[in-house]
Structures are given as structure tokens and as C-alpha cells.
């Protein structure tokens, strides 16, 4: 997942990095194909070089050491709202075929079955970044026909929904899961590739909507030895990369 996520960062882009696995994806991208990418962290940190050690949160002291700017949340959210941010990462508890994400509550909002933490900056990234990169574990209970609450808007019900809602741009471009990679085509997820450990059949079985596949659906390109080395060197104990939640 980390290797796939890193590939989504293009050289020279400004990227809202976010928490957990994207922290490592940014490091991989910087050290491989995107040395000039800029990392924006919503608490108010801008970096042109990855942090020198594993981050548990974006507020860890090593993420500030060597930063080029310490600012306010509103400064970076302002860049996002202006349209200056190319891409942003988020995860979620639930997603639907149109890329709408729920990180608020399972069940009813006021009396939830499972209370989740909430948006953080996720809904802002989903609303305002040019491209949204979604990363989450693949599970039928997570990839659902319809989510209980739309925390972070994707393509709504499809078509020109985002425009009608008043959103200025953006939407999910990719959904990377533990089993495969979906691209969004006309506002709906289409399976582009399955990881070596998975298959189209297994993905269909683990997905809560009827899976559409790309004409050239194929196995996900495996991470290079170099990328694996970077990931393992950065997170040697696998705190983030081996985590299952």
C-alpha cells in the first residue's frame, strides 16, 4: 500500500500528507521519483525534506526539526482552499463506490453503534485538494454500497454532483487497499489492479458493491527492492506498515 501511495505523488507537487501510512509514502516518494515534492502538514508544518526518523504523529519534534515553515493551520488550509495543493491523502473507516468516506460514526450519528474519531482535516482535503488519494484496509464492512455518514465528500451520487454541491474542484483519484488499486472513472471506482497476494475474484468477494474492472486489469506492479529497503529502513519495527486496525 505504501509503495502504491508513493507512486501517486508526482514530482514537484505540493501534497497534504496526513497521518499514519502517508507519512511513509511521502518519504518513499521524496527519496525516489519525486525529490522536489513539498509536504504540507495541517497543524502548520511545511517540509521540503522528509523527517529524519519515523513519525508517530505529524506533531512529533523530528517533523519540526528541519522544516522550512512553522505556521498556523489556517495558513495551510488557506493554500488548500485557494487550489494551491495538488494532492492529499486520507484514510477512512468506510468508503462507497463513489469515493464518499465515513470517519465519523457507524450507525446513527447521535446514537452511534461505533463512534469514530471524526474528520480531522480529512473532509477539508476531500473538499478542496485537486486529487484525493485514499488508503484503507480492504474489507466488505469497509467498502460498502452506501456509507452511514459522509464525512469527506467523494463524487456524491456521481455525475456532476460535486459541482452541484458547490465544491470548487477535486475528488478521489485513487483508492488503494490491502488487496488492490481502484481508479475513479466518471465518479465511480473501477478496479485497475490486484496485488500479488490477491485476485479479481477475491476483491469482488471482499467489496460491498458490484466491482467494475478496467479493460486491462492486471497485477499491481510490485515495489522495487529500493522502495522496500527505504520502507524497512524508515519503519524497521513495522509500527505503521504491519499495523492492522
Amino acid at each position, binding site marked *: 500500500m505504501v509503495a502504491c501511495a508513493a507512486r501517486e505523488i508526482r514530482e514537484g507537487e505540493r501534497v497534504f500528507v496526513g497521518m499514519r501510512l502517508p507519512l511513509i509514502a511521502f518519504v518513499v516518494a521524496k527519496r525516489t521519483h519525486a525529490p522536489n515534492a513539498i509536504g504540507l502538514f495541517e497543524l502548520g*508544518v511545511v517540509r521540503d525534506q522528509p523527517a529524519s526518523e519515523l513519525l508517530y*504523529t*505529524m506533531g512529533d*519534534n523530528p517533523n519540526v526539526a528541519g522544516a522550512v515553515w512553522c505556521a498556523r493551520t489556517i495558513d495551510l488550509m488557506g493554500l488548500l482552499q485557494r487550489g494551491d495543493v495538488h494532492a492529499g491523502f486520507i484514510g477512512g473507516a468506510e468508503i462507497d463506490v463513489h469515493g464518499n468516506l465515513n470517519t465519523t*460514526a457507524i450507525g446513527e450519528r447521535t446514537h452511534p453503534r461505533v463512534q469514530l474519531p471524526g*474528520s*480531522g482535516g480529512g473532509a477539508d482535503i476531500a473538499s478542496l485538494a485537486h486529487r484525493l488519494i485514499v488508503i484503507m484496509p480492504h474489507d466488505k464492512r469497509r467498502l460498502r454500497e452506501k456509507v452511514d455518514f459522509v*464525512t469527506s465528500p467523494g463524487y456524491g451520487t456521481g455525475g456532476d454532483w460535486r459541482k452541484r454541491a458547490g*465544491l470548487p474542484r477535486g475528488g478521489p483519484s485513487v483508492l488503494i487497499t490491502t488487496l488492490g488499486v481502484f481508479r475513479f472513472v466518471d465518479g465511480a471506482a473501477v478496479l485497475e489492479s490486484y496485488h500479488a497476494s490477491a485476485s479479481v475474484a477475491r476483491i469482488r468477494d471482499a467489496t460491498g458493491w458490484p466491482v467494475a474492472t478496467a479493460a486491462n486489469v492486471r497485477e499491481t506492479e510490485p515495489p522495487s527492492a529500493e522502495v522496500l529497503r527505504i520502507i524497512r529502513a524508515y519503519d524497521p519495527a513495522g509500527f505503521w506498515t504491519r499495523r492492522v486496525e
Partner: protein
Amino acid sequence: MTAKLVSLRDAVDRLVPDGASIAIGCALEPAIPFAFAHELIRQRRSELHLIGPISDIAFDQLIGAGCVSQASAAWIGNVSAGLAHAYRRAMEEGVPRRIEVHDHSNFTIAQALLAGALGAPYLPTKTLLGSDIPQANGTFREAIDPFSGEKILLIPAIVPDVTVIAVQRADEDGNAHLWGPWGVSQEAALAAKTTIVLAEEIVDRAVIASDPNRTIVAGTKVAAVVHEPGACHPSPVQDRYRRDHDFFHEYHAATRDRQGFERWIGEWVTDVPDRAAYLRKLGARWTALREHRTSVA
């Protein structure tokens, strides 16, 4: 001027009544004034309205301790460990009590506090159009921009009764230096009716005046200054101490059930008289986290 310098106990006793709205944890993951949250629990504050973006586990502790009736927040959880168990129990089971939550995103909480700081009634935004958050929040309003004719969302100002920020250093008048990311701390400090500063170190006015760009809030806006070293453990303070990751993970494991939560609060909050005793209890663990860099100041 020195009348502003008070103990943590007195600051909570005199300035935070039951039912107060209180912004805390405004730098997001770092510089969370856990010492203040713990004193609120020790003094059994109730019916508080918590305001803040991320808060890490500070909101979870206050909610689990029964101090809270409302929260206006973007995220309530345990950043490196996962979900917040006490918040879950409050929302799912009403234990120890039900709370009312006004959902925000980090951007909208920042805008609400900025509007408060500006003395503006609201700020218009394009974020969250199409999200279910505006409806769940209950205070936002969708409108048409009179200039462009496009849809916008209006975020009404939040004016906290009290804002608490933690900083590396302040003088006795409350002129406060915070470095590292500021999150929404400055907006919250300027928006509040009463602003309280917790300082790792009290310094001479000349130290502040030597680098006024580092000042997050001027003393003229500050009601009380508390000298409280180690106030933010287990969250980090840049160049003073690192984040105690294990502490967050241990809290997560220990508070899975209500009994575990109560044991944890007893051990680390209600059976501990003050922050100095808390740091002594941490012992060598605390010493190992400390850093004192002077490279930037």
C-alpha cells in the same frame, strides 16, 4: 503585573467555572496542556463545553471523567493508537453521561476561532459542501455568495469563555513565545474572553522582546500565567521534550473498559496532587524524554 502569575490550582479555581466553554489542545498533536486537563478533573469541573481540533487523548480523559456536556471538535481519538475508548462509551452507551457533539473539520474550527479573533460574526468557506458535517454540526449555514452567486458555507464565530495554551516560555505579564507549529492556538487565544498561558519557563521581558515574532499572544490579552514545567507530557514541546508514544499506547490498552479507565485516572490524575508529583512518578522515563536545544532560541 506579577498578579497574573498564579498556581495551576488557582487558575482553574478562579477562572474556569462549571459550564464554561474551554478551548484546549489548540496546537493539534504537540503542546497539549494535559496538566490543565488533569487539574480540571481533580477539581471536578462539570458541564464543560470543550473546543478544539484534535486534542489527542486530552478530550477523552475529560469526557471519561464526566467533566463534559458538549464538544465542538474535528477529531477525538488517540492519534498513534486508534479510537478513544471513553469518547466511544459516552456516545455509544451514555457512560458516564451523554454528551452533545458539534462536528467540525480542522478548517472549520480554525475559521470559527479566527472569526472570534477578528470580532467577525462568521467566515465564508467552500470546504464541507456536500459533507454531512454541516448538518451534524447544527450551527453552520449554507448561503449564496452575493458576489459570485456560488454556494458557500458560513461558519459562525466561536468565542470560548476560556482558552488555555502551553508555550515554551512567557514573562510574568503573559507575553508568550511558542515555536513549532501553532495549529489554531493563536486564533483561540485571541478569540477567548479569558486566556490562560502555561509556560515551561518564566523569563524576563527582555527575552520576549529580543524576538517578538515568536510571540503567539501579547500579555495584554492574557489573564493568567502559570509556571508549569512538563505541563504537556505525554505530548511533545519543541526543543523541550519529546512525545512519549508508549504513554499514549499504554493509555489505549489500559482504558478499554470503564474500570480500567477509572484505575488509570486514579493512578495518573486524582491520586496525584500536582504536576511536580506526576513528573516524579514518571521518574527516569521523564528524564529520557527531555531535550533542551538552544539552537533556535
